[in-house]
């Protein structure tokens, strides 16, 4: 990895990698080909951004604390595998990260481009339903994937995203999130994450898959609007403590890269196994509510395409492609 210091961002990366050891101001200045005063100015700017940098006499600079931000540098610091993530584009406040990601994808942004915001003022879910996305509390992020596949292999990515985020929440915060078919993440019966997946495709080729994630991370109970109080939760509420958003975002991105690669290389079977193992739906009596009918029965599994199978009371098995799943008990 290129670590030559040339600006504020690369200086930050350098201090992060030093892991608490002082880095000499003179050395940084020499490396960047600038004066020590210029390095000191970058440090001042980092402090204005919310970082705590201590100056140790005759030794250099030490990064002592980072702000609670989803900045590219902070997310990259936590990435266990940086093969997947390309650009991370970070906004303070946006309407929604989804249209921005669509535009980036159309303008040639590569596979692994990430759009992330501290706040969304018009966060949305499926069917243009609003999604509460308070400032600094969650991971409001859209990821661009550009796999070389036909469109009929794309719907499986909603289940891949669910597995990736479910396991990231477990790894990072030890909270037992489970997947409601096809891709909502619940803790108990409350929703901790919504995923919205959209496609840009030609009739025979996927151009881009945009995976939008609304992960409720550090909200406390009274941070949710009243109408969500009974149906929403956050990782923090479930873990009982503050969660590092950048670390969780990095785990999500690492897993998204890992499981989409697994799907492309080995097909859906390994994803199906992980999905079923972490499912909240399988084994439950559910109603599958569709536009034209409602099917009631026991969810018994998903197919090799991710289609939910429900055993109805007459003993038949119905394959569900599109439905809202609700508990029938």
């Amino acid at each position, binding site marked *: 990895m290129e670590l030559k210091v040339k600006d504020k961002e690369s200086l930050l990366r350098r201090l992060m990698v030093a892991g608490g050891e002082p880095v000499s101001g003179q050395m940084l200045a020499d490396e960047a080909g600038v004066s020590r005063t210029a390095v000191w100015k970058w440090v001042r700017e980092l402090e204005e951004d919310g970082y705590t940098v201590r100056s140790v006499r005759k030794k250099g600079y030490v990064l002592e604390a980072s702000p609670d931000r989803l900045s590219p540098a902070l997310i990259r610091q936590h990435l266990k595998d940086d093969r997947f993530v390309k650009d991370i584009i970070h906004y303070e406040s946006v309407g929604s990260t989804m249209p921005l990601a669509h535009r980036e994808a159309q303008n040639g942004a590569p596979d692994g481009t990430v759009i992330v915001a501290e706040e969304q003022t018009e966060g949305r879910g499926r069917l243009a339903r609003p999604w509460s996305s308070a400032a600094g509390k969650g991971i409001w992020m859209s990821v661009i994937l550009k796999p070389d596949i036909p469109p009929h292999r*794309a*719907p499986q990515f909603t289940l891949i995203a669910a597995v990736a985020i479910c396991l990231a929440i477990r790894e990072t915060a030890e909270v037992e999130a489970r997947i409601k078919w*096809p891709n909502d993440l619940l803790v108990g019966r409350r929703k901790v994450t919504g995923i919205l997946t959209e496609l840009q495709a030609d009739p*025979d080729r996927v151009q881009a898959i945009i995976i939008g994630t609304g992960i409720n991370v550090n909200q406390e109970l009274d941070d949710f609007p009243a109408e969500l109080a009974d149906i929403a939760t956050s990782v923090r509420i479930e873990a009982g403590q503050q969660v590092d958003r950048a670390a969780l975002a990095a785990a999500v991105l690492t897993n998204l890269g890992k499981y989409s690669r697994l799907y492309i290389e080995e097909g859906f079977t390994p994803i199906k196994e992980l999905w079923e193992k972490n499912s909240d739906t399988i084994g439950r009596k559910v109603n599958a509510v569709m536009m034209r009918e409602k099917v009631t029965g026991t969810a018994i599994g998903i197919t*090799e395409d991710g289609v939910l199978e429900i055993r109805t009371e007459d003993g*038949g098995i119905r394959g569900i*492609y*599109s439905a809202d799943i609700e508990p029938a008990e």
Partner: protein
Amino acid sequence: MLKIQEIREIIKLIDQTGIEEFKYKTEEGEIKLKKGGAFQVVESAPAVQAPAVAAPAPAAPVAQPAPVAKEEPKQQEAAPAAVSQDENLLEVKSPMVGTFYQSPSPDAAPFVAVGDKVKPDSVVCIVEAMKLFNEIEAETSGEIAQILVEDGQLVEYGQPLFLVKPE
């Protein structure tokens, strides 16, 4: 018997060639694919509304031998008449199995109605499966001549959704 994935691949390959008809027969059943006018998966039964999906057991519904012969004439009848009557109409086909939505959300107006002019990049509908929303574009310039499926209906891979009278 063939898996649904394999059948899809076969359909795709046949679609790219001049082959008009394809039969595959084993002890477990028979699959017959036929091109011409409307592109059809002949054996796919009335499952179009509510396809039973393969149980873990080997017998996939598409592989049941009996209905094949019986269903064929029905499917032929059900094929949109306009196709044979007017060779100039172009089909907009579904690129995947999923639910057909004619509008972006339940309360919104439909993307297109019969008589509407479309351009290649006009969105004509959404096909959704597993909450993946695929906005389907007309891919051609012309006028919507017929809408072949209903809002909320499950559509098959390759099923014609619209007929477009090209400009």
